């Protein structure tokens, strides 16, 4: 396997890791505040549909993004209502939301576009286009020279290859997702909000008796989760793909959930974990690469199941013990 192929696989890894990372960080805020969320999948799916639908209708991807985030936030509020206000079962709520979205997106899509539950293809300003960073070889250079972009990159120096192929040329949401990692770390461990957020996930009574509202803290965590899921879904439909198709999240919300556990609810670990899972997905498309490296063919179905199998292995605690926030999943009831 040559260097450029490796770069291409890693480039795909980043593309696949981005929605996982966004959803994983979304879950991180929620679960750090003590609210389990197995509805990441549903929120992503809803955002994917509405961002694509609105982007198509308005012709502006940014308006689409806003719509996607708004819907995801609405669903978050529903989850908050069930798990914070009415102290219901957080797992059931997350499941119901995912299911609700699975049905609703098709219903609305059918009514709106009459294309069997999908949106039309997005083009131009209705999509997030790749950004060419300064000094990187991009499509503009290729056009100026009248040559294939891949050929230009192949001829460049290894350093330039890494820069142009791997680092440059992603839609803005990818860079945003990466920037969110240090930001999340900073918020969690260096701000008042982060201190309270972590406290409410560990022992809500400590926050309550300190005169801080458990309810509003948890709601804000859940809202942030909604925003990030919205970004993840919008990325899927308007940046990674060009439009919405039925059930397009294909379990990414659940993989993000698993990544969160593997990352032990820490932002930097979340980045590494989602990159790893992104790599698995990237390899699924390039089984030839695996065959070259390990010298035997791997069934594509096995590769498809690999993230889940690994997740089970991880969950089983064979790779370090993951201790969730202590008050996770428990509705807070004031003690007499």
């Amino acid at each position, binding site marked *: 396997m040559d260097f450029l192929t490796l770069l291409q696989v890693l480039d795909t890894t980043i593309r696949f890791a981005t929605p996982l990372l966004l959803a994983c960080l979304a879950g991180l805020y929620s679960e750090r505040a003590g609210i389990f969320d*197995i509805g990441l999948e549903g929120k992503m799916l809803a955002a994917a549909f509405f961002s694509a639908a609105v982007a198509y209708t308005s012709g502006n991807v940014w308006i689409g993004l806003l719509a996607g985030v708004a819907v995801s936030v609405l669903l978050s509020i*529903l989850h908050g*209502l*069930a*798990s914070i206000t*009415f*102290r*219901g*079962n*957080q*797992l*059931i*709520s997350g*499941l*119901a*939301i995912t*299911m*609700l979205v*699975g*049905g*609703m997106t*098709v*219903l*609305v899509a*059918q*009514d709106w576009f009459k294309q069997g*539950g999908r949106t039309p293809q997005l083009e131009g300003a209705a999509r997030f286009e790749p950004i060419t960073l300064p000094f990187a070889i991009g499509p503009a250079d290729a056009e100026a020279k009248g040559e294939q972009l891949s050929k230009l990159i192949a001829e460049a120096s290894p350093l330039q290859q890494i820069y142009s192929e791997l680092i440059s040329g992603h839609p803005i949401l990818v860079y945003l997702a990466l920037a969110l990692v240090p930001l999340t770390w900073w918020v969690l461990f260096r701000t008042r909000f982060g201190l309270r957020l972590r406290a409410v996930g560990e022992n809500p009574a400590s926050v309550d008796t300190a005169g801080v509202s458990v309810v509003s803290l948890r709601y804000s965590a859940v809202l942030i989760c909604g925003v990030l899921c919205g970004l993840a879904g919008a990325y899927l439909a308007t940046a990674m793909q060009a439009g919405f198709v039925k059930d397009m999240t294909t*379990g990414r919300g*659940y993989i993000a*959930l*698993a990544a969160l*556990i593997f990352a032990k609810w820490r932002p930097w670990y979340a980045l590494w974990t989602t990159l790893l899972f992104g790599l698995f997905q990237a390899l699924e498309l390039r089984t030839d690469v695996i065959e070259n490296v390990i010298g035997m063919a791997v*069934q594509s*179905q*096995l590769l*498809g*199941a690999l993230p*889940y*199998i690994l*997740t*089970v292995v991880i*969950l*089983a*605690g*064979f790779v370090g013990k993951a201790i969730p926030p202590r008050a996770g999943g428990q509705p807070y009831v004031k003690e007499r």
Partner: protein
Amino acid sequence: MDKMPKWADVVLIPLISLILAAVISSLVILAIGEDPIAAVKLMVSGALGSSNGWGYTLYYATNFMFTGLAVAVAFHASLFNIGGEGQAMLGGLGVALVCLFIPWPHWSLAIVGAAGAAALFGAAWAMIPAYLQVRRGSHVVITTIMFNFIAFSLLNYLLVNQLRPPRAMDPASAKFPEATHLPSLHDILGTVGIEFSKHAPANVSLLIAVAACFAVWALIWRTRFGFELRAFGKSESAARYAGISPFKITMVAMLISGGLAGMMAINNVMGESERLVLNAVEGAGFIGIAVSLMGRNHPFGVFLAAILFGFLYQGGAELALWTDIPRELIIVIQALVIMFTGALDNMVRMPLERIFLALNTKKEG
């Protein structure tokens, strides 16, 4: 004292939840420019208006009885088995292997073998998450979700690469031999002289599902194991005090749960399609959750809720056929039922409790 009478908890709350779900669904139907009342009429006539409709309704209900019981048994042990979907897929695999590779002389023997295989495969698929929960502390909800995806990949691989007959295009097994075909309700009722639609898929598995409801009831409320199961589900610390093994309860509860989910395959795989197709389960595993919540985890409640959802399913299919309302409407209704009965339970309960409290004080005062 209890804040409200038991009947309110058992009947009123699910009923109100159902009404709320129906109201919201009607709004959705209105929003997509259709008439909800006409839709309900169509659903009723399509699902209950003919023996053909009933045949489909009961066919779906059979599936949901199995998956609903599966969820209910686990719930009593305070385990949330979201993996019914995957367990039912594996059950289908078990049925297919038994039907394809064993030369059965008669359906009555085949169904015993197939049910056993279905239960065995389903139970095996639930066993690993159960084991990981008790021995490794990994949450059964997350692992069963993962196992649904793994089951799909496994089935996909087997159907595409192993079980698919030569020259066939779609990922499905060969047709099962004639001797394994189950008698339909038409055949059964015909022997006692009752006319029943010939084309409806409801079959003898329905009787097995009803028997399973009785068996689960007896298991939970009449046996020592059921006693331990419920005790463990209510209080793990008390169970430990009484010498009830968490390992045993978790494992056996999940094995029974997975077995029941797997047994659904005698209905859909053996009774209806008579071969194994990739998406045979069609979300019945998830509907089991709605059925169990709606039926208050009681086998009789599960029985009723399964018929209700069978009606919704068949009615929804009729809607999709005759109107612009897609089948996914049923998924929305089912999600709303789960939301209201499972997660927003207190939203319904709190005002009700206040009403009953006010009524009680008035009576006493």
